[in-house]
C-alpha cells in the first residue's frame, strides 16, 4: 500500500511544486491522478520515485510510505529494485538505443533469466515491438514509443507501476489501445497509478481518482463517482452545463473536498 | 539599445548568486572604491622608494595582472580560453619586431616604441578577431580545446620565426621612449607599466559595467537563456575574445619591457596554466581585484620561499636536483589551492573576503541588507 501524507515539495528553494498532498493507493487498485499542466502531477511521481534532486526539487514536509518503506529516504535504485517502477512523462525513450536495448535497460536490475521471462511477456502484450527489436527506438511512431515506454517499465516486473500521461500526443484510437493495455496490466495484479490529463479515459477505468490543483488535492473519490460529479464533467470532460470552463473556480473545488 | 533594457529587466528575475552579491555590496562599495583608488594611486607613486629589491617582483605583478584580467573577461562569461600564452607571446614579439632594429640575428622595423606598442596591441586583437568564426561558435569546453591548439601552434610559429623571436637565446627588447626620454631605469619602467595597467583595469571595469558586461553575464548563466533575451551571443563572445586577446598582448609587451628580453620558451602551455591559476586564486568574477590578488599571491609566494626558504625546514635549496625546491613547493601549494578553492568557493579568494564583509555588514541591521 502506498501512502502519501502532507507532502510538500519545492523547486530550487522557491517554486512550490506540491503544497501538502495526501493520497492512498491500495494494493491491486488502479488509481488515477488528474490535473492540468503545472498542477503538480509529475512532481508527485518524481517524489515517489525519489528522483526530485535531479530537477532541483526537494521534499520539505510530509511522508511517502510504501509497504513500510520510507520512500523519501530510499535511494532511487533501491526503490526500483523493490518493484516500484515509473514510466516517465514524455515517454523518455532512449532514441539512440535499439528497442531491445531499451527493454534491457528497463530490466537493468533484474537477472538475465528474469529479463528473458519479462521480455517474452512484454512482447506478447505488444506484438508490434517484436518485429522491431533491432530498430532504433527513435525511429518508432509515437504510439509504438508509448508501448515501448510501458513495456520497458514492465521489464522490471513492477508491483506498483507509475504511468505519467501515457495518452499524451496520441490519436484517439491509440489512446483506447493504451487504456486497454493499462487495464490488462492492472488486472494481471499490478497496482497502477495513472497520471492523466485525459480525464474521460482515466476515469472510465479508475478504482479511485484524485484531482490536483495548484499542488493540492482539490477533489477525490471513487472513479465512477467523480465521473458523475458536476465539476469534473464541466472542467475535465468538456460536457458542462455552464457555457465554458472558468479559471476562477478554485474556491468551489476546495469547498467540495468534503463531498467525497 | 533594446538589448540593454532586456538584460536589465531579466537580471533580477534570474537572480544569480553573482548578481545578488553585486546588488548587496553596492552602497558601501562606492565609498570604499573611491578611497581604494586614492590609496592605490599613492601606493603606485611611492612604490619605487619603498619596494627596494622587490621592485622587479611588483613590476612583474602589474604586467601579469593585465593578462589575468583578460583571462577573467572570458572566464567570467563561462568561456575557458587556454590560448593566453599564444596571445601574450604574439604581443611581446610583435613589439620586439616593430620597434627593434635589424641586426645579425634579428629583423626589425625600427618604429617608435610607443607606436609599436599600440600597433602590436591592435595586431593581437585582430588575430583574436580572425579566430572569431571559431571562438564565437564554440562554447566553454570546446573553446578550451581549440585554444589549447593555438598555444602549441603558437610555440611552433615562434620557433620558426627566428628572425623575429631571436630563436632559442631570445630577443632583447627596445626600451619604451617618449620623444628623447628613454625609460631605462627601473623606476621609470615601473611608472609606465603601472600606468598602462591602471588604464587597462579602468577600461575593464568599464566593460564589465557596460552593455557588453551585462550580456556576458547573461551568457554565463546560459547561452540559450541569453539568446532568448535577444542577446546576440556570437557577437558578444567575439567581442569578449577580442578584448581578452588585446589584454593578453599588452601583458606580453609589459612582461618584455620589465624583463628587457623575451624568450620564446616562456610562451608555452605552462604560462597559460599559470595565468589560469592566478585567475582562479583571486576569483575570476572579481574582474580586476581578483586578478590583482591572484597574481600577487602567485608571484610573491614563490619569491618569498626563494628568499626565506632557509628558514623552512623541509625545503631544499633552489636549483637542487632532489628534494622539495621552493618552486615545486609553491606549485604544489597553488595546485592544491586551486582544487580547494573550486570545491569550497568557486569565486576565489576575493569572494571569501566579500563573504566576510557581507557577514560584518549584516550584523549591523540595515533595511536594504535584510532583503537578501
Amino acid at each position, binding site marked *: 500500500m502506498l501512502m502519501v501524507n502532507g507532502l510538500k515539495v519545492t523547486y530550487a528553494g522557491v517554486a512550490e511544486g506540491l503544497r501538502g498532498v495526501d493520497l492512498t493507493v491500495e494494493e491491486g487498485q488502479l488509481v488515477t491522478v488528474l490535473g492540468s499542466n503545472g498542477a503538480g502531477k509529475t512532481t508527485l511521481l518524481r517524489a515517489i520515485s525519489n528522483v526530485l534532486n535531479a530537477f532541483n526539487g526537494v521534499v520539505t514536509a510530509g511522508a511517502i510510505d510504501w509497504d513500510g518503506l520510507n520512500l523519501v529516504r530510499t535511494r532511487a535504485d533501491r526503490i526500483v529494485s523493490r518493484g516500484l517502477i515509473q514510466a*516517465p512523462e514524455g515517454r523518455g525513450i532512449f532514441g539512440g538505443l535499439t528497442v531491445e536495448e531499451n527493454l534491457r*535497460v528497463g530490466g537493468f536490475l533484474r537477472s538475465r533469466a528474469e529479463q528473458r521471462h519479462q521480455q517474452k511477456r512484454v512482447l506478447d502484450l505488444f506484438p508490434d515491438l517484436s518485429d522491431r527489436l533491432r530498430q532504433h527506438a527513435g525511429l518508432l511512431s509515437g504510439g509504438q514509443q508509448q508501448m515501448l515506454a510501458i513495456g520497458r517499465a514492465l521489464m522490471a516486473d513492477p508491483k506498483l507501476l507509475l504511468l505519467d500521461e501515457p495518452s499524451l500526443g496520441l490519436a484517439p484510437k491509440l489512446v483506447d489501445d493504451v487504456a486497454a493495455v493499462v487495464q490488462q496490466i492492472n488486472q494481471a495484479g499490478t497496482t497502477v497509478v495513472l497520471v492523466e490529463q485525459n480525464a474521460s479515459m482515466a476515469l472510465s477505468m479508475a478504482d479511485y481518482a484524485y484531482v490536483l490543483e495548484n499542488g493540492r488535492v482539490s477533489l477525490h473519490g471513487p472513479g465512477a463517482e467523480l465521473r458523475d460529479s458536476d465539476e469534473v464533467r464541466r472542467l475535465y470532460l468538456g460536457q458542462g452545463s455552464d457555457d465554458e470552463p472558468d479559471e476562477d473556480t478554485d474556491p468551489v473545488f476546495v469547498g467540495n473536498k468534503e463531498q467525497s | 539599445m533594446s538589448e540593454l533594457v532586456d538584460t536589465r529587466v531579466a537580471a533580477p528575475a534570474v537572480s544569480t548568486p553573482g548578481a545578488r552579491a553585486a546588488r548587496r555590496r553596492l552602497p558601501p562599495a562606492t565609498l570604499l572604491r573611491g578611497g581604494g583608488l586614492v590609496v592605490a594611486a599613492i601606493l603606485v607613486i611611492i612604490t619605487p622608494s619603498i619596494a627596494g629589491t622587490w621592485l622587479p617582483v611588483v613590476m612583474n605583478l602589474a604586467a601579469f595582472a593585465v593578462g589575468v584580467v583578460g583571462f577573467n573577461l572570458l572566464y567570467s562569461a563561462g568561456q575557458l580560453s587556454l590560448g593566453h600564452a599564444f596571445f601574450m607571446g604574439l604581443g611581446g614579439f610583435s613589439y620586439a619586431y616593430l620597434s627593434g632594429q635589424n641586426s645579425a640575428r634579428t629583423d626589425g622595423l625600427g618604429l617608435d616604441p610607443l607606436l609599436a606598442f599600440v600597433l602590436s596591441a591592435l595586431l593581437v586583437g585582430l588575430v583574436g578577431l580572425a579566430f572569431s568564426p571559431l571562438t564565437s561558435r564554440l562554447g566553454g569546453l570546446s573553446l578550451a580545446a581549440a585554444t589549447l591548439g593555438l598555444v*602549441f601552434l603558437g610555440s611552433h610559429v615562434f620557433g*620558426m620565426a627566428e628572425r623575429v623571436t631571436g630563436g632559442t637565446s631570445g630577443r632583447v627588447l627596445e626600451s619604451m621612449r617618449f620623444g628623447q626620454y628613454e625609460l631605462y631605469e627601473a623606476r621609470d619602467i615601473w611608472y609606465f607599466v603601472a600606468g598602462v595597467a591602471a588604464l587597462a583595469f579602468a577600461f575593464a571595469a568599464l566593460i564589465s559595467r557596460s552593455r557588453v558586461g551585462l550580456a556576458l553575464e547573461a551568457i554565463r548563466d546560459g547561452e540559450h537563456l541569453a539568446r532568448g533575451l535577444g542577446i546576440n551571443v556570437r557577437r558578444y563572445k567575439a567581442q569578449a575574445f577580442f578584448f581578452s586577446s588585446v589584454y593578453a598582448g599588452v601583458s606580453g609587451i609589459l612582461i618584455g619591457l620589465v624583463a628587457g628580453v623575451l624568450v620564446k620558451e616562456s610562451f608555452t602551455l605552462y604560462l597559460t596554466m599559470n595565468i589560469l591559476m592566478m585567475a582562479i586564486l583571486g576569483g575570476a568574477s572579481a574582474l580586476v581585484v581578483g586578478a590583482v590578488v591572484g597574481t600577487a599571491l602567485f608571484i610573491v609566494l614563490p619569491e618569498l620561499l626563494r628568499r626565506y626558504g632557509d628558514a623552512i625546514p623541509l625545503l631544499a635549496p633552489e636549483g637542487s636536483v632532489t628534494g622539495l625546491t621552493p618552486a615545486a613547493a609553491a606549485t604544489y601549494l597553488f595546485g592544491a589551492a586551486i*582544487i580547494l578553492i573550486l570545491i569550497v568557493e568557486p569565486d576565489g579568494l576575493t569572494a571569501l573576503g566579500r563573504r566576510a564583509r557581507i557577514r560584518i555588514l549584516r550584523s549591523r541591521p540595515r533595511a536594504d541588507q535584510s532583503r537578501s
Partner: protein
Amino acid sequence: MADLLQLLVSGLSLGALYGLIALGFVIVFKATGILNFSHGAMLLLGAYVVTRLAHVNFLLAVLAGIAAAVALNLLVERVLVRSMAGRSALAITVMTIGLDVVLMTYARGEINTRVLPMGDPWGATMVSIGAVDIPLSRLVALVVSLVVVAAFFVWFKRSSWGVAFRAATERRDVAPLMGIRLNRLSVVAWVLAGVLAVIAGVFLATFPSSGVNVDLSHVALRAFPAAVIGGLDSTHGAIVGGLMIGTAEILAQGYQSHLEFLGGGFHEVLTYVLMVIVLWFKPAGLFGTQEVNRV
C-alpha cells in the same frame, strides 16, 4: 612504396594508442560532462609505476601500473569530482587542471630529467613482413590496442552496464528511473579511463619516446585533439580520430624533408592543426552529436 607501407603501419600503431587515450577523454566526458585535463598526468604516473617494477616481471608491473592509475582515478572521482556535484562542468574541468599541476609537480620531482627504460620484452627486435621492416614493439602496440578497443566495444554494446552507460548519457533524467546510479557510471568511466591510459602509456614509452620521462604527458596531450576531432561524445569517433592523427603525424615525420617550409618538428603540432581545422567546419567534431557545451 615500402617506406610508405612502413610509415602507415607505424602511423596506425601510434594512432591506435592515441585512440585509447582519446577514448579515456570521451568516456569521462560522456559520463560527467567534463574534460579531464589530468588524464595525461595519470598516464605518466601509471607508466612510471611500471618502470619501477619492470625488473621483477613486466606483465605484473603493467598490472600494478594499471592498478595504481585506477586507484588514483577512483580517489579523484570519489573525493574531488563528487564533492563538486552540481557545479558547472567548466568549474570541474578547471579543477582537473589544478589536479594536473599537482600530479605533474610530483612526477617532475620523482622522474626529474631522467629517462626511465620501460623494461619491455620487445626491445629493439625488428620484424620483417614482406619488404617491410617494423619494430616488434609497434606491432605489439597495434595488436594490443586493437584487442583492447574491441573488448571495450563488446562491453559497451553488449553488457548491461554498457547499455546502461549509453542510455544514461542519452537521457540523464530517465536513467535513474530504471535503477541506474549515475554516480556508479561516473566511477566506471574514471576506472576505464585509467586502464586505457596506462596501456597506452606503456607503449608510448617504447615509441615514439624511448622510455618514461616527464614529456610523456605531453605526448598524451597530443591525443586530446583526437577526441575533439572525433567528437567529444563519440566513442568510435575517438578511435577514428586517433588513427587519423597518428597516421598524419607519422607521415608528416617521415616526409619531413618535403615539409621543411612548415618548420622543424611540424609533425608534433600537426594534430592541433587538424583539430582547429575540423572545429572550424564542424564544431561538434566529425561524429559528435552535440556541441560540447552542456548546460
